């Protein structure tokens, strides 16, 4: 709280609040140079430490291979998660099986940890409707309209409260999403309800071409927590141990009825998607700086210091991951056969008569109009 301050040329007596009144630090366990305080390291066993590493490799290989597929024309537009590995893996690793995860699309490995298969992620990006069925079976969903699914997350958390279910729900979303009205209403209402909800923001500094400074005049997303009376935190999102540890605490807080607004500070080192050219809006120095903070390399140096690196055969791991990816592509390629009925069948539990007759009309036209197939089946598929 400032007293008798000046702002520009304005003399102020009244106790104006500015964001300087709320210092926000960045929680970190392993620093940019790989140094860390052994006391702060979370209590995991060797296998778990290695798991975190392996998952980050999965995320990285996934991103690389998806882009390759896209370039080869075997995939529609895809986004890359390069740079976000620690943030995605650390947050996902803290979740339990029954927890819900409503994601924005960049959280592949977190969904895989919840039991989603890589094939289904591929189906999703190929626009095959069944993908979200398999996601839902693992309590996951991808919401494409930015921010709009956050109130749904609050509702799921509310449902957990009403039914005394000991789980949590997390919304994963980006810095852009925090400017939507849906974000605000969702977090505020979760606060009132004491819903077991974690609002997990991967602040990667950009929303397509819009930098964080143009997204909001606030210095952090975490500081918004005070405005909702929920717990907030800003974590180094390139430090997998800090993310994991803070997320574990977040999960406990949420279970106890304290919703959390979690900001993981990270960076998207590639384009927003394969249709985006990031050189239009940002310089290479910025990108290079962040590449130097690569979350995987940082964790490798931690593993080395802990004497765990010798347990890792990185090439074997990559090969294994690639083999999994190969198998997933094959399974995705084989997926089918599909039928137009599915486009109509799942809108309502029971198909209303008008919809049924529209379906029959479509089926009839597919049967009877020879050249219709040209327009439908032969057009290039994404």
């Amino acid at each position, binding site marked *: 709280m400032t007293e008798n301050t000046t702002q520009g040329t304005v003399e102020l007596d009244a106790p104006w609040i500015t964001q300087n009144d709320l210092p926000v630090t960045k929680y970190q366990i392993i620093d940019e140079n790989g140094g860390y305080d052994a006391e702060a390291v979370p209590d995991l066993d060797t296998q778990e430490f290695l798991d975190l590493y392996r998952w980050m490799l999965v995320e990285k290989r996934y991103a690389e291979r998806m882009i390759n597929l896209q370039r080869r024309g075997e995939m529609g537009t895809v986004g890359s998660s390069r740079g976000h590995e620690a943030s995605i893996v650390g947050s996902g690793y803290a979740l339990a099986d029954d927890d819900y995860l409503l994601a924005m699309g960049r959280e592949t490995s977190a969904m895989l940890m919840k039991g989603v298969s890589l094939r289904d992620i591929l189906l999703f990006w190929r626009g095959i*409707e*069944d993908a*979200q*069925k398999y*996601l*839902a*079976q693992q309590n996951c*969903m991808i*919401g494409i*309209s930015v921010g*709009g*699914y*956050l*109130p*749904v*997350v*609050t*509702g*799921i*958390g*509310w*449902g*957990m409260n*009403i*039914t005394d279910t000991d789980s949590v729900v997390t919304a994963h979303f980006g810095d852009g999403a925090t400017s939507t*009205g*849906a974000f605000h*209403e*969702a977090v*505020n*209402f979760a606060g*009132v309800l004491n819903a077991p909800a974690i609002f997990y923001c991967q602040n990667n500094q950009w929303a397509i071409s819009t930098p964080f400074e143009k997204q909001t005049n606030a210095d952090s997303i975490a500081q918004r927590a005070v405005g909702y009376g929920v717990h907030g935190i800003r974590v180094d999102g390139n430090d997998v141990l800090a993310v994991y540890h803070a997320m574990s605490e977040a999960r406990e807080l949420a279970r106890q009825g304290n919703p959390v607004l979690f900001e993981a500070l990270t960076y998207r080192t590639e384009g927003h998607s394969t249709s985006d050219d990031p050189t239009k809006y940002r310089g290479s120095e910025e990108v290079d700086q962040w590449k130097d903070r690569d979350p995987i390399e940082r964790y490798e140096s931690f593993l080395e210091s802990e004497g765990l690196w010798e347990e890792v055969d990185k090439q074997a791991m990559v090969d294994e991951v690639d083999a999994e990816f190969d198998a997933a592509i094959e399974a995705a390629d084989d997926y089918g056969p599909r039928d137009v009925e*599915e486009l109509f069948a*799942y*809108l*309502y*539990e*029971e198909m*209303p*008569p*008008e*919809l049924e007759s529209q379906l029959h009309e479509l089926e009839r036209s597919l049967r009877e109009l020879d050249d219709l197939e040209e327009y439908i089946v032969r057009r290039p598929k994404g």
Partner: protein
Amino acid sequence: MPETIIDAINMALSEEMEQDDRVVVFGEDVAETGGVFRATEGLKDRFGSTRVVDTPLSEIAIVGGAVGLAVFGLRPVAEIQFSGFLPPAFDQLVTHASRMRWRTRGEWSAPMVVRTPYGAGIRALEHHSESLEGAYAHVPGLKVVIPSTPYDTKGLLKASIRDPDPVLFMEPKHVYRSIREDVPEDDYEVPIGDAAVRREGEDVTVISWGAMMQQTLEAVSKLHVDAEVIDLRTISPMDRETIVESVKKTGRCVVVHEAPKSGGWGSEIIATINDEVLMYLEAPIERVTGFDIPVPLLSMEDYYIPHPPRIAEAIERVASDGG
């Protein structure tokens, strides 16, 4: 004394909450005060404040929260205080409620009800009088139900709460307390998707719903035309069959609704008749509707509402039109 529509809403909610503990009721001012129209009166005392909840002033979170509850297996009944305050939540209806089942191929779904009073005539402020059912009914995956009588209100609301899919339940607030009839204490449903024939007749089919039913029946009662009067009850999915059968018989039709004419649901009714029974038509169908303007404020709102004389004139004109 026989029951009002408000009573019927209250009965339906109490009975469903009694029978199914997944049903939760929430919205602005619904718990402590029982809602600005008292439709939820007594529910909080009876079912407790876990199941009857006052929310913040957050229409997005109310509708989106309902989707989440429904996904999690509950049976949310949300209230939006006036339908003029539903547009802020339009995205939640379009983007989530209406397509949760579709998106997840049946794995998740959104069995939820959004109740909201709609329509003009209660001398309220701006944005308290609109009828936008046509826009909502155009959204695939959303059911839109509008009762016109106390009996139907109870049965349709119960059916809506039990429906496996999202229902927008628009309540004719203008007649909330002005129509009374005996509403049985029995557990009955009025099925979604079925229109009711309120009066059988041979000369003209008159189709309406909600608050305009009252005006329509009054108009018909004063005429010497033998009108068949259909209460649509469910806007979407629409009972095309009842409409088509009636127009086959009468060859003439008038549609009455309160919403603006252009792009209102009346046009879909006309299109349906065109699709199925055009060649039975002996005269153009007429629409008696609100105008393509915002509903006037309280001092002049009655100029907007399709009152019985306008309806009666249209029925007579259509009945006597040589084609």
